[in-house]
């Protein structure tokens, strides 16, 4: 996957402003956006997915222009065909696992899936080991089951790229290692490029070939290959108070 990004966005909340100006190019199947909270990682990913509209700039993926403010191009999310795994998974609480996974096919008013869509859902449920809990609601699932459901939901529509926002942040150590391995196996199996957000250096070593480091809404480094993260191997120090506020601003 070749990705070429140059986007700008201002977010205002109360009397604070967060200015994001991100520019990077990469040719990889495993890219990580790395940085402390408040760096603008989630906002960048949301703009890639088409969920947030950049103020200006350009996003080109594999030769296709998804966004170009100069030419007035803003491809809607459905035509970008991205699979998005949200930080807290954002599973629909009123739908069962099977309904959540079928979500990408149920775009209109309730209508039955086509035979091939139903087969696809069944295959994905099976390969994600969700068949036994297909009729459970998200509130009844464990953390690992939720994550598998979220990734399955993102993958079922055969997206061009998988976007993951801190997929392991909510998990404890043992589970984190297992799910990381699962995710990599899935990624290799489906041969799907992925862009992953993380603030955990361990994720970089395991999951990323290209690391784009962000801080304060700017790209501070682009590292290619599995060399150590630019900001030492320790997790980030607690973020400064104003970047916390900026992070909150982006979440609202």
């Amino acid at each position, binding site marked *: 996957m070749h990705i070429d990004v140059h986007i700008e966005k201002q977010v205002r909340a109360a009397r604070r402003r967060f200015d994001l100006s991100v520019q990077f190019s990469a040719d990889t199947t495993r890219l990580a956006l790395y940085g402390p909270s408040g760096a603008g990682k989630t906002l960048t990913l*949301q703009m890639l*997915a*088409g*969920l947030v509209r950049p103020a200006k700039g350009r996003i080109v993926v594999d030769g296709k222009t998804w966004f170009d403010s100069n030419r007035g191009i803003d491809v*809607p*999310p*459905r035509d970008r065909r*991205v*699979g*998005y795994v*949200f930080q*807290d*998974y*954002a*599973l*629909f*609480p*009123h739908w069962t696992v099977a309904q959540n996974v079928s*979500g*990408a096919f*149920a*775009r*209109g*008013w*309730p209508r039955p899936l086509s035979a091939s869509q139903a087969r696809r859902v069944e295959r994905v449920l099976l390969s994600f080991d969700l068949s036994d809990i297909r009729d459970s*609601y*998200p*509130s009844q699932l464990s953390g690992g089951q*939720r994550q598998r459901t979220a990734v399955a*939901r*993102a993958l079922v*529509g055969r997206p061009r790229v998988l976007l993951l926002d801190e997929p392991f942040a909510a998990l404890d150590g043992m589970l984190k290692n297992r799910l990381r391995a699962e995710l990599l196996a899935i990624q290799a199996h489906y041969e799907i490029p992925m862009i992953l957000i993380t603030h955990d250096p361990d994720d970089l070593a395991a999951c990323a070939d290209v690391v784009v480091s962000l801080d304060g809404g700017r790209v501070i480094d682009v590292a290619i290959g599995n060399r150590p993260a630019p900001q030492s191997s320790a997790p980030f120090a607690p973020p400064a108070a104003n970047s916390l506020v900026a992070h909150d601003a982006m979440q609202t």
Partner: protein
Amino acid sequence: MSSVLIPLLLTLKVAVCATLIAGVLGIGAGYWLARTRMPGRDTADALLILPLVLPPTVLGYYLLVAFGRSSAFGAWLEGTLGIHLVFTWEGAALAAAIVAFPLVFKASRAAFEAVDPTLEQAGRSLGYNGWTVFSRVTLPLAWRGVIAGAMLAFARAMGEFGATLMVAGNIPGRTQTVSIAIYEAVNAGDDTLAGALVVIVSLVCVSLLIAANLFARRGHMRIAPV
């Protein structure tokens, strides 16, 4: 018997229409204010709540001025569309809808605000357009709160007195709703009729209130984000 049944059926007709009008407008306005970040949304909120605070007679007077034959708008409604609102049951429904509107609006806004916007983003990332996100994600997660508001609105519309009387008057069989019929029965010393109507209205309103509370309480458990 017909002195009970006729005002009761008219009241139900007026209250159902009023609830539908207030429901559509209240859901729309509630969703809009729950999601917009436009400056001045607090002012908009206050203006939309106004019918709850204003005395019904004041509201009725405004409606008369706005929709009466002497206003340009009222003349246009009558002349061009053939809609008569003064001294008709449609006018009573409109008055009741406006009085009941804030109840749907308030409840819907709170219910929509309780729906995690990330879930709407998740819908959009799956390729849903705005209407699909609303109808398949947001509304199903908020509907208990919305229904609870609509039930209160229905009860309020059933009991509407002041604004309805101002706009639609008190024409037995045409615009005389139950609350107005009760007032007239008491004035005329007909305690049997007044008593029967009072008991019926009380029963309907109490059951609606209980139902609305049950809905809202269960809804709270369901709409909690996962």
